[in-house]
């Protein structure tokens, strides 16, 4: 089972964990991505996220389906937040349940790595003296 959400309100990791609980699970791995206060020594004030939502949901679902196949995952939940986020706030939560723990860790890492490459979500880092779209320019 797969649960994908893009929200413009605060994320709760427990929502994802509850979704992936399963009688056949030997473990649940959870990744929580949070807003860091600095990039290359520069103070970050906040991040501004936006998404091309219908495609982002499709691409997130593709990642989840691939995880089901490759790691025999039981349940997968991926929630991503958009809008303005302050330092320490949660931008993404990924939870995966699998029969054995090693697969859960691997699947969770694969999910966040692939999300960062394929899912049409963008973030702008707002510094004290300006703002930059992350990864857009060399």
């Amino acid at each position, binding site marked *: 089972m797969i649960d994908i959400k893009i929200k413009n309100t605060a994320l709760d990791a427990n929502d994802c964990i509850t979704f992936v609980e399963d009688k056949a699970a030997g473990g649940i791995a959870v990744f929580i*991505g949070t807003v860091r206060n600095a990039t290359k020594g520069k103070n970050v004030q906040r991040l501004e*996220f*936006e*998404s*091309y939502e*219908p*495609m*982002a949901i*499709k691409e997130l679902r593709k990642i989840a389906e691939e995880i089901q196949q490759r790691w025999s995952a039981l349940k997968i939940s991926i929630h*991503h937040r958009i809008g303005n986020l302050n330092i320490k706030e949660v*931008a*993404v939560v990924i939870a995966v349940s699998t029969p054995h723990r090693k697969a859960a860790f691997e699947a969770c890492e694969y999910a*966040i790595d692939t*999300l*960062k*490459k*394929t*899912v*049409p*979500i*963008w*973030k*702008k880092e707002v510094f004290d003296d300006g703002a930059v*779209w*992350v*990864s*857009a*320019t*060399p």
Partner: protein
Amino acid sequence: MNIKIVAFGIARDIFGDSEINFNIEKGTTIAELKEQITMSYPGFKKLVSFSIAVNQSYVPEEYAIESNDEIVIIPPVSGG
């Protein structure tokens, strides 16, 4: 034919708008459209790369655009 192009992130900043109208010849491919956009909006030259999604999916560069396609510029993504 006239198509609508939607843009997010830095692509929206380069267009100065979240969508533009663009005139292309029938049969124009994604690769050709990318060249034409970059000619009209040189700001795209400073990007690491960009893709064009059609109907909410990534498509090969040789895909020929049809008049009703939903065309969206996908600058380098940075979720998570």
